[in-house]
């Protein structure tokens, strides 16, 4: 009797309980929370001036007690730059993921809902966009708009929309019975109402997981674009551009490349662990 009581509870609590059972997911979440806090309290941890003030006397110094991660070619503290790059990266990652979720979601859901020629047309369009590898597309768009953070976000959103549209469209088809859509239509609801009130809650889980993975990929992508000089412009610190700076000094100052790269890895990995954990927690199939 008591066992049965243990199993009931709100869906959210259930999902959270399942989520907590995976050590990887918990580790990912903890690391992500730490990063998030670092991003919010960046200024408290280390003043922004430390990240951008050049100091010719202290160029290319190895990690020491004064400069935990050493200094770069301009004498700036790498630790400070990494800390202040955190909010930038997280911001870019989350905005790209959320915006492309909204736009791509609208395209995908409406496509699945209306079907017919509209669906065909939309999917052809998405197919064409998908024939161009994502990084390439973003590069061209950034070239068009000019290389700065805002344009980079726009470029990545354009590239990411293809994926979100496809995922949300197949999520609608994948929901166990599309008859609830028919039922809602019979009830006389307007199309938009149906899409928002009925369809979205049903595919929320899949969208959530996909968005989380999006954040992880976007952080990586942003670093890639900045590495090529097509993203965040100096002196704003960004992990990818820091790696680019480190290229020429690979031989003389290898410490410059270790830390930013590791930061990218940590951010991308932790969020993708969270995404994995979410997916397993939302899908109640037994694993053993």
């Amino acid at each position: 009797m008591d066992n049965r009581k243990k199993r009931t509870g709100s869906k959210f609590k259930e999902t959270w309980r399942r989520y907590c059972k995976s050590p990887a997911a918990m580790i990912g979440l903890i690391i992500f929370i730490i990063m998030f806090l670092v991003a919010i309290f960046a200024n408290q941890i280390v003043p922004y001036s430390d990240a951008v003030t050049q100091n010719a006397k202290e160029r290319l110094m190895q990690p020491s007690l004064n400069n935990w991660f050493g200094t770069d070619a301009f004498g700036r503290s790498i630790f400070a730059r990494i800390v202040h790059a955190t909010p930038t990266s997280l911001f870019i990652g989350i905005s790209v993921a959320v915006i492309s979720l909204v736009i791509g979601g609208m395209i995908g859901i409406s496509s699945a809902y209306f079907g017919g020629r509209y669906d065909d047309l939309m999917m052809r369009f998405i197919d064409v966009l998908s024939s161009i590898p994502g990084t390439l597309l973003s590069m061209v768009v950034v070239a068009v708009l000019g290389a700065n953070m805002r344009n980079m976000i726009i470029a990545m959103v354009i590239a990411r929309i293809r994926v979100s549209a496809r995922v949300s469209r197949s999520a609608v088809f994948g929901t166990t019975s599309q008859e609830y859509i028919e039922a809602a239509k019979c009830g006389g609801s307007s199309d938009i109402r149906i899409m928002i009130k009925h369809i979205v809650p049903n595919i929320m889980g899949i969208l959530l997981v996909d968005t989380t993975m999006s954040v992880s990929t976007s952080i990586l992508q942003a670093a890639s674009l900045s590495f090529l000089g097509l993203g965040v412009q100096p002196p704003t610190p960004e992990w990818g551009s820091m790696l680019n700076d480190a290229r020429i000094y690979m031989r003389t100052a290898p410490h410059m490349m270790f830390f930013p790269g590791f930061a990218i890895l940590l951010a991308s990995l932790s969020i993708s662990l969270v995404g994995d954990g979410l997916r397993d927690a939302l899908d109640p199939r037994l694993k053993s």
Partner: protein
Amino acid sequence: MTNNLLRIKDLSVIYKTDLETVYAINGVSLSLNKGETLGLVGETGAGKTTLALSLLRLLPERTSKITCGEIMFKDKNILEMSAEEVRSIRGAQIAMIFQDPMTALNPVLTIGQQIGEAIELHSEDTNKEKIEKRVEEVLSLVGIEPVRKKDYPHQFSGGMKQRVVIAMALACEPDLIVADEPTTALDVTIQAQVLKMMRDLRDRLGTAMIMITHDLGIVAQICDNVAVMYAGNIVESGTAEDIFEGDEHHPYTIGLFNSIPDLENKTSRLKPIPGLMPDPTEIPIGCSFAPRCVHCMEICKTGKPTQYVNGSHSIVCNLFAEGGAK
């Protein structure tokens, strides 16, 4: 060499996960002779499938455990055999037919390949031609044209798929076939066909069979002996006459018979058995059927009920014990 093919003694099986332990089977004993058909009846969750899987040691390794008992097949204990020996028995001497034909066949292999594999695994002679011939023989046996051995499972309907599964089971002429609700997933008309076919084959080949089902109608058609299972225990067993025409029955059996809708008499309501099966994570102290039994007595709640034997008929219920109500 006795006539006895299978003897299960006091078998107990548990499933253990991080959260809880499920007592699936608690001290079950069964016996089967050559050529006999035993019907194993019970609701979902009674432990029938677990029993079937234990016979061939097909239970999931990590989560299940056979805590006690022995399964004597041809006078050898299956539970003590090596993995090699068990594998040589599977398919060749004991074959299994599972419940859902739609998922029981590998979608990327032809049915000829799958039936052929069953044969190949258990014969020393791997002559390709001989195997092909046997495959075709077996297919005709179940009413499928031999040319279709080159077809894939998705090209067959549900009923046909189940015939393929039966063909696979028969391919090596096993001594015992365990059929776990073989017709439940099929339409009623197909059910009748498949059942008739199984009965004919059984008569022709003399195979012993354990037919697991929740449908008393099927039991009446095809089974010599019956065992009624409830919450991991056998509560009543006997010949088909004992069960269908006898006067004395376990209250659960009576409940089962009563829940069958009657074509001849008019009733306003169906008569289900009130209550639900007990939580399998807890073994009740007394009789597991006590909470739902109309004849429940004090003694039923305090200890395990005694077994009452009348010839071939056995009932595990205090109602029939010495000094009981009857």
